[in-house]
């Protein structure tokens, strides 16, 4: 059997999915008496029409890159980590503790320490479900989702007791100034370019680095080879002397660490204090990002930017029109639905078309049957 060309798999199908999602969203908008074309224009302009828009779009994208990579690494080991939300929350705790513990003299020192803090806490939160899966066979989907609730409750508890700063709000004290990350505005200003005030900060570069490191891990290291082998076939992994429990635990640790890194952007880069609700569903968006990006770092990067634009564009739409907030969530949900859950609906007919009309160029040396 032949396959579709790679470009169609990676680019064409997500684009068709996206177009279908926007089409359905447009129909819904029509029903509530809005002009869908105008709405789309506002969204696009709001997301990528200015440095302000880009500043928000890429800020959101940074969150989604981390959570998307987290899901993608687990996917390669055939593990469905839907605990990105909780791991990111624990990561935020780790980042906050690191930032609050030391009167940091400069962000260049605080950033590596916060990365370690976020990664270690995120990984630790993933370790328990990973251990239960590897050694006890408790299904990781169930345990990770349960751990999201525990993480959320744990954070609330800490924010109304130990970590609570004086005042009414359940939040921590503000981080010392040495732990504030430079924003895009400051970074660009240093090289003489003007950029709007937006939460985009240096963590975006950390996210890009993470993409590259994940690629390196999966396709260039022995560990990545073992993770992918286990993901394809467990009996084969055992045949090759790869220990499935060991790889399950390691893959989940990496996954949890990546999710935990999201806090470097959201907590350290923007809020500069620990808030009760600092993940805002990014852990779940990460699943859609990994699915749409076909678990490849480049795909994750592009999908994360798309979802970032959708978030920012949606916020603008809400601001400029009478489209209700709920409607924005519907549009985002439609994109997740079409790119994630309904992926095969488009994939199969398109593959069929390619097989039917792609005969002229047989793949080199394809054997019969």
């Amino acid at each position, binding site marked *: *059997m*032949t396959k579709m060309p790679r470009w169609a798999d990676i680019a064409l199908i997500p684009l068709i999915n996206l177009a279908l999602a926007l089409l359905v969203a447009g129909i819904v908008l029509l029903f509530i008496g809005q002009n869908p074309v105008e709405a789309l224009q506002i969204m696009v302009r709001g997301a990528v029409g200015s440095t302000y828009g880009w500043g928000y779009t890429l800020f959101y994208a940074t969150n989604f890159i981390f959570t998307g990579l987290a899901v993608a690494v687990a996917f390669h080991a055939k593990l469905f980590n839907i605990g990105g939300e909780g791991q990111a929350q624990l990561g935020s705790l780790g980042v906050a503790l690191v930032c609050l513990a030391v009167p940091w003299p400069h962000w260049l020192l605080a950033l590596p320490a916060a990365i370690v803090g976020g990664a270690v806490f995120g990984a630790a939160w993933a370790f328990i479900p990973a251990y239960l899966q590897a050694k006890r066979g408790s299904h990781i989907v169930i345990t990770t989702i349960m751990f999201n609730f525990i993480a959320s409750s744990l954070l609330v508890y800490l924010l109304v007791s130990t970590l609570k700063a004086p005042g009414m709000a359940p939040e921590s004290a503000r981080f010392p100034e040495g732990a504030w990350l430079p924003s895009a505005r400051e970074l660009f200003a240093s090289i003489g370019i003007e950029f709007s005030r937006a939460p985009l900060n240096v963590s975006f570069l950390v996210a890009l680095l993470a993409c590259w490191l994940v690629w390196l891990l999966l396709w*260039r*290291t*022995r*560990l990545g*080879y*073992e993770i*992918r*082998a286990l993901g*394809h*076939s467990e*009996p*084969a992994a*055992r*045949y*090759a*002397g*790869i*220990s499935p429990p060991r790889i399950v635990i390691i893959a989940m640790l990496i996954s949890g660490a990546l999710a935990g890194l999201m806090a470097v952007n959201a907590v350290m880069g923007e809020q500069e204090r620990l808030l009760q609700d600092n993940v805002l569903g990014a852990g779940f968006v990460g699943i859609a990002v990994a699915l749409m990006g076909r678990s490849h770092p480049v795909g994750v990067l592009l999908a994360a930017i798309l979802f970032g634009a959708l978030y920012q564009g949606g916020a603008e739409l809400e601001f400029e029109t009478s489209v209700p907030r709920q409607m924005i969530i519907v549009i985002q949900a439609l994109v997740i639905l079409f790119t994630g859950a309904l992926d095969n609906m488009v994939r199969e007919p398109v593959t069929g078309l390619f*097989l039917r009309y*792609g*005969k002229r160029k*047989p*793949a*080199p*040396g*394809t*054997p*019969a*049957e």
Partner: protein
Amino acid sequence: MAAHDDTGRPDTAAPAIELKGISKAFGPVQANKDISIRVMPGTIHGIIGENGAGKSTLMSILYGFYKADAGEIWVHGARREIPDSQAAIAAGIGMVFQHFKLVENFTVLENVVLGAEEGARLTPSLSKARKLLKQLSEEYELHVDPDALIQDLGVGMQQRVEILKALYRQADILILDEPTGVLTPAEADHLFRILEGLKREGKTIILITHKLREIMEITDTVSVMRLGEMTATVKTPETSPEQLAELMVGRKVLLRVDKAPARPGETVLQVDNLKVTDSKGVERLRGVSLNVRKGEILGIAGVAGNGQSELLEVLGGMREGRGSVQLNGQELDLSGTKSDARTRRRRGIAHVPEDRQREGLIMDFQAWENVGFGYHDDPAYCRGMFMDNAALRKDTERKIEKFDVRPANADLAAKSFSGGNQQKLVIARELERNPDLLLVGQPTRGVDIGAIEFIHQQIVALRDEGKAVLLVSVELDEIMALSDRIAVMFDGSIMGERLPSETSERELGLLMAGISDTSREHSIKEVEENLAHSGGKVMT
């Protein structure tokens, strides 16, 4: 069913099945090219060909799984459209698949009726089926307990249920796809008697196989397929295995393995009282003892599911066991972290696993990634924690050339190679490690004749270099041809050891069925009872 009745009595002059100019392509692959064939009623018609020759595709078209791109199907002199299996059944065509399609936790009766129930109430259909089943089993020696659960039956029995299913649906043309792959010689003989009986009753049988011996033994006519084309149709008495093999492969083939007598040296592998209990608590190996010496091939014969897989898995480090295993006089850990496949490889054990697609290869990995599989921590393939992909690719290209893997493309995914070439990749990887002991399971399962010859030569060559080989195969021919000694396994135990020159297929067949040396006078009937009885605990 009902539609079948209005065709009336089959017109004996017309062929039971006539295919005219059938073509079918999957993408760029032409699986069937302009195939025409006439199967006369009341005959057994064999279709033989290598893997990938297009036999299964052709039968799938006849059974309505695929739609032909071109061509016509005629059944008993009338043109038929067969868009789905319902239509095939209506035309009186029944199919017995290689992999049975039975519901494991249903009884025989429930399976037979499944999909052919009459009305919403089950009881009338069941009692009707019970009567018919009784009649059929007497007519054709198809004895099965209608109330037994499928999961408690041996493979031979399950196959009878498949045949009964087809007959219950009033099939008068029966297609059997590789029916003897999982049977003991005695069971195969019994199956052939059943088929002869069906033929006497006027049924038409199409037998798909790659075993020349079966074709010669039972068919009236044989059609040979190669590369999607029907190359010849001949009367069986007028042909020979050599001629058929040549027609299948397109060149002369050595059917026998040429090998010099073994010159065994000291013991490499010494296994004593090896036991394995599976996760359900069933004892799979009940104290196996054997040894393999340098420069010899020990063949393990047995019906699939009698502990051979577990034996290979324990020795290969994929499963824990109890007892004693020594390699070159040194004890191997049978449990704990030092019992894994990686440690075994370092100790000099190479392993060609029974199921290359599930274990031996990662089907989505490219050929070069697969050539490092299991040896991916070899310093030659690594630079620190990184893989040396360039070195691996280069080594793969060398192995592909040496072992004549086709297409010679190291970047192709394993799943894009044919079965034989996939196996060559595994063989190349394992044999090139220069192991002290080679474990090899089902080396030629699903492999075409041309590649079988090559793989057999490679295994014998390794033996001649003074290496020890432990061979597990359910193909008795293969065991007989390759082994220097033969051990027969039944129900987790070694039933006996024989020299190939001093035994016969009949004797081995009895051992495979669990009849030990002392009671060789047992009749075939008792063998079958034994098998049916053992089926429950041997099979899961």
